[in-house]
């Protein structure tokens, strides 16, 4: 919403500057977006009169002028052909910055004559893009008048109107609020009705639907249309509107002045002797004033006459019935269109007109007929003519019901202690009326405040006008604190996981929760209920079933920039459906190993390095790593079948998957492999049992030295090392502390199709040092267990 300071002053008696108005608006909730104030830019410039202009002694095209200025008479050299005695124009003193040419005036001789200032063109003041001479102003302007005033330029204030305040879409509504803040006095006079000279010959019909509950209008005959007077044109131009004709300009003026859109019809073009507001009919079309033809739908309101639909109600009038300079009889419409239907009409037609914007937000139902009277008066003043009586059909919506309001509630809800009298004074200035007193007080909101429907709204009005600066700053009362911290186990785990991974050398990324549907499908997603109806881009149209695709895409982008060696992780949502329980939190890492070459020749197996990080991470997340099964080949289809595994507590308790990504998935994602990754399902990690006390079990330290024994087993190639180790470790759970593979060998000395696995077994004697015979017996148990479980034989 744009308006000028002088327009505001039509409704507000104030000496405030644009900056003061801006500040008062901002602090009253009218958020100013920007103020363009030409007066600030042109502060140095003022009106001057050329007294004498003679040929420059040394230059044909220059004149030496004697000029009366606010600084006295000055000799100024001017090159403009129109610099002549008696001309009233604009003067810039020495030191002034000329915006159009970007120079600052200095005392300088022009071909031997010193110029003590400058006479300016419109282009030099940036009030026009080009000009062919200095400005020619009206002779009655006094020397010294500020240029902005002389040129009729003034500050334009543009602000954001929140959807609850359609009354701010009129300058009078803004003035009312500013008056309440103490910036000035609200001076808008009530509108006097204009008596009709004859009955309105045009009937008004409504279809009884909610599209247009009320419609008022009248005929004014014998008008003379044409260009509107200069003051009206200037007012509209200042806020960027194009003057059209007096009749149309009057409706635009009232739209911006009172937030009351109107429409004028050339009565000669109306047929059937009636005008009708009704829902549209399938197949109807309207050729609108913007020159476009719009198809009508049964959801939106149209204006019709005997010929059918002639306008889009509350949105835009029709081309066939618009006013022209030839119009002599005008039918003026002031109606109340339903906000929701008008909003819908705006969406379906794509039209966002001044009228549509206001009706969609809700115009003041109490001003419908008043607006018609105001328009009548202006038309009679500017175009002459004779008005009919006003015709009204239907009923405007009732105002908000009175609100029971105890002024003490202001302090209860806002903390603001300003007293009941001041609170009620503010409400009164804003147009609210009171009935009763004290706790039985009832407040009637004005018709233009349909947003106010409860006592909290009244508190906002009082606090807003009193100023939020006056609100106290009150510390929160202490609450009994939860002793165990404020984070859930899951939240704490996510934090621990984040910092563990960063410590292990992984960089945290945050990527979109959506990806391309075809990528989602690669990772088991892409269900129709997870596809966005209005994605921001085709490649971001589906909720991700896994973080792997979005992290791999990020890795690809890094590689394309020349940074291929990445270890990225993310902790975020993954989606298997659209219900709340279908969203889980994944802790996901993607490793694209391109480590720098090493001088010591050591080669790191990246997949096992990742496994090491993963197990460390799972420990930090509180997963029972000792009981996790490594189910190789059981991981989902997007993993390399031979180089991936599931970590699970059972087939239905999958904690994580990890491994190398499947080459065909990588190809579809356009990335060079190998790419390794892991994905942990945070919610799948069992929560620890809540314990009343935090003490740990006593530490039992054996006084006996542990000992270790190595076993070299030969097993079939297909046997998993983990199965052998589990068998070995399980051979004697009392004595065996741990078992670990330390060598894998296949080749000479080991049969074809078999491999040798060397296992180091750590033995912790419990109550006595083991005798050789006991160690032998234990070894036999280990060998037997290994043989039974996986067919392992001791290597000969």
């Amino acid at each position: 919403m744009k308006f000028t300071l002088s327009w505001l002053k039509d409704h507000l008696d104030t000496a405030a500057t644009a900056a003061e108005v801006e500040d008062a608006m901002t602090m009253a909730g009218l958020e100013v977006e920007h103020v363009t104030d030409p007066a600030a830019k042109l502060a140095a410039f003022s009106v001057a009169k050329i007294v004498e202009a003679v040929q420059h002694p040394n230059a044909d095209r220059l004149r030496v002028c004697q000029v009366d200025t606010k600084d006295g008479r000055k000799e100024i050299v001017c090159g403009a052909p129109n610099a002549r005695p008696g001309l009233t124009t604009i003067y810039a003193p020495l030191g002034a910055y000329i915006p159009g040419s970007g120079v600052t005036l200095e005392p300088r001789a022009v071909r031997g004559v010193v110029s003590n200032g400058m006479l300016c063109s419109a282009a030099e003041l940036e009030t026009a893009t080009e000009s062919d001479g200095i400005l020619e102003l009206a002779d009655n302007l006094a020397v010294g008048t500020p240029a902005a005033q002389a040129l009729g330029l003034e500050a334009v204030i543009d602000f954001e109107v929140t959807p609850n305040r359609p009354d701010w879409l009129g300058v009078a509504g803004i003035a009312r609020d500013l008056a309440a803040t103490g910036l000035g006095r609200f001076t808008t006079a009530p509108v006097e009705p204009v008596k009709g000279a004859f009955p309105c010959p045009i009937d008004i019909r409504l279809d009884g639907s909610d599209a247009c509950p009320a419609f008022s209008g009248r005929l004014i005959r014998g008008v003379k249309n044409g260009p509107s007077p200069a003051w009206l044109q200037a007012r509209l131009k200042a806020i960027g509107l194009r003057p059209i004709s007096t009749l149309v300009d009057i409706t635009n003026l009232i739209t911006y002045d009172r937030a009351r859109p109107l429409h004028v019809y050339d009565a000669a073009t109306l047929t059937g002797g009636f005008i009708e507001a009704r829902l549209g009919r399938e197949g109807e079309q309207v050729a609108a004033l913007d020159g476009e033809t719009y198809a009508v739908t049964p959801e939106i309101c149209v204006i019709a006459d005997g010929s059918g639909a002639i306008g889009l109600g509350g949105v835009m009038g029709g081309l066939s019935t618009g006013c022209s300079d030839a119009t002599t009889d005008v039918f003026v419409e002031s109606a109340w269109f339903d906000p929701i239907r008008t909003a819908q009409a705006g969406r379906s037609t794509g039209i966002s007109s001044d009228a549509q914007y206001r009706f969609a937000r809700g115009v003041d139902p109490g001003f419908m007929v008043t607006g018609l009277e105001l328009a009548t008066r202006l038309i009679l003043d500017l175009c002459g003519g004779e008005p009919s009586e006003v015709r009204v059909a239907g009923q405007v919506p009732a105002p908000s019901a009175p609100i029971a309001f105890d002024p003490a509630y202001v302090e209860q809800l806002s903390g603001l202690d300003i007293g009941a009298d001041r609170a009620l004074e503010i409400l009164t200035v804003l147009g609210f009326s009171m009935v009763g007193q004290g706790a039985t007080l009832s407040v009637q909101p004005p018709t233009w405040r349909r947003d106010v429907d409860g006592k909290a709204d009244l508190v906002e009005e009082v606090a807003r006008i009193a100023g939020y600066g006056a609100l106290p700053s009150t510390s929160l009362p202490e609450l009994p604190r939860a002793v165990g911290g404020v984070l859930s186990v899951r939240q704490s785990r996510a934090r621990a996981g984040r910092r563990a991974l960063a410590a292990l050398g992984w960089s945290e990324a945050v990527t979109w929760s959506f990806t391309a549907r075809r990528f989602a499908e690669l990772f088991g997603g892409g269900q129709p209920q997870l596809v966005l109806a209005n994605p921001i881009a085709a490649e971001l149209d589906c909720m991700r079933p896994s973080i792997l695709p979005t992290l791999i895409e990020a890795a690809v982008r890094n590689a394309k920039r020349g940074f291929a060696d990445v270890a990225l992780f993310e902790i975020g949502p993954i989606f298997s459906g659209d219900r709340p329980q279908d969203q889980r939190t994944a802790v996901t890492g993607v490793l694209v190993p391109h480590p720098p070459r090493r001088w010591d020749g050591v080669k790191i197996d990246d997949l096992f390095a990742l496994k090491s990080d993963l197990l460390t991470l799972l420990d930090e997340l509180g997963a029972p790593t000792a009981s996790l099964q490594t189910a190789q080949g059981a991981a989902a289809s997007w993993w390399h079948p031979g180089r991936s595994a599931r970590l699970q507590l059972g087939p239905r308790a999958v904690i994580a998957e990890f491994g190398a990504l499947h080459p065909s998935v990588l190809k579809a994602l356009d990335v060079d492999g190998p790419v390794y990754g892991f994905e942990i399902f945070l919610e799948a990690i069992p929560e620890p049992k809540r314990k009343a006390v935090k003490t740990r079990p006593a530490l039992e330290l054996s006084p006996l030295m542990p000992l270790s024994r190595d076993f070299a087993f030969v097993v079939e190639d297909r046997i998993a090392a983990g199965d052998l180790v589990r068998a070995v470790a399980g051979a004697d759970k009392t004595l065996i502390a741990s078992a670990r593979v330390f060598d894998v060998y296949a080749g000479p000395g080991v049969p074809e199709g078999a491999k040798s696995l060397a296992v180091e077994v750590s033995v912790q004697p419990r109550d006595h040092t083991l005798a050789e015979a006991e160690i032998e017996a234990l070894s036999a148990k280990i060998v037997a267990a290994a043989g039974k479980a996986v067919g392992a034989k001791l290597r000969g």
Partner: protein
Amino acid sequence: MTDLTALESDLAAQIAAASDLAALDAVRVWALGKTGQISTLLKSLGSMSPDERREQGPKINGLRDRASALIAERKITLEAAALEAQLAAERVDLTLPAPPRRKGSVHPTMQVMDEMVAIFAEMGFSVAEGPDIEDDFHNFTGLNFPPKHPAREMHDTFFFAPGEDGERKLLRTHTSPIQVRVMQQGQNQKNEAPQWASGREPPIRVIGPGRTYRCDSDRTHTPMFHQMEGLVIDRNIHMGHLKWTLETFIKRFFETDSVVTRFRPHHFPFTEPSAEMDVQCDRSAGSIKIGEGTDWLEILGGGMVHPNILRICGLDPDTWQGFAFGLGIDRLGMLKYGMPDLRDVFAADSRWLEHYGFSAFAAPNLASGLS
């Protein structure tokens, strides 16, 4: 009779000349070995007369002791030299690079979220979360957005196709649905989705951080971003408490007492009265500096929870009242740490992550200062 003096000087010369431990040992054997010079002299004592022995004994024994001491002394010197030579041979070039290790980092948005949680936890807030895919009720209707109200259009909502029941799910446009989940009495999600907040009885004091989505993209808008909701419900919580909470938060977050804020009226469907908070800043250098200058920058919004929402959630607005606020986590992080473009926050450029990321061990806490 051997000339003991000559022998001693010969021996001393040989010990001094021994250049390594083997040579020294050869000298020792020559002098003190079983058939060595001094050993032989010592043996000869047995065949001497008592008088001769009384005279020669101390001399020969003295010679032996001095010889042993000299050898021992020389041995220490030679051992030290040998060790030095060995160590010199063991030199490695320590300017060679150590095995490479990737440098990990915590994403700035997550770091900032942790900072915010630390500040609010100290004020007694706990953390509640909700799902990213929401229904119309939690995102709009339950938050007092009337159906078809223009305020909904301002949200640039991402929608999913309507389901079999005709219901159109959406991506939450703000974290405010968490408010409804926390306040809605009798709504318990514990069984189906224990990760999300469910209805609890007042007094309530929670923050709700999370991902939010709007169909918008430029330097300061991305289709996904992070917000944090705050909600306090009690019997006598008023707008002054909101003002204090936000003022205190902003000072602690920016870690400066010089930050100037102002509270001004605004409109949100879910609060009444509503407010926005601006922070004073300086924009003159092309970037925004908080705690300086005379410009204002809007940083967050809030207000008193609308009575309609309390009613919808089953709380009596004549008994319970309180405030709610929402802030942009990424945006406040950008202001604090000088990240110029929101789009970079989600681009996962490894150079950006290293530059703006945080150490694993920099977990924000109020004891050591947030950053």
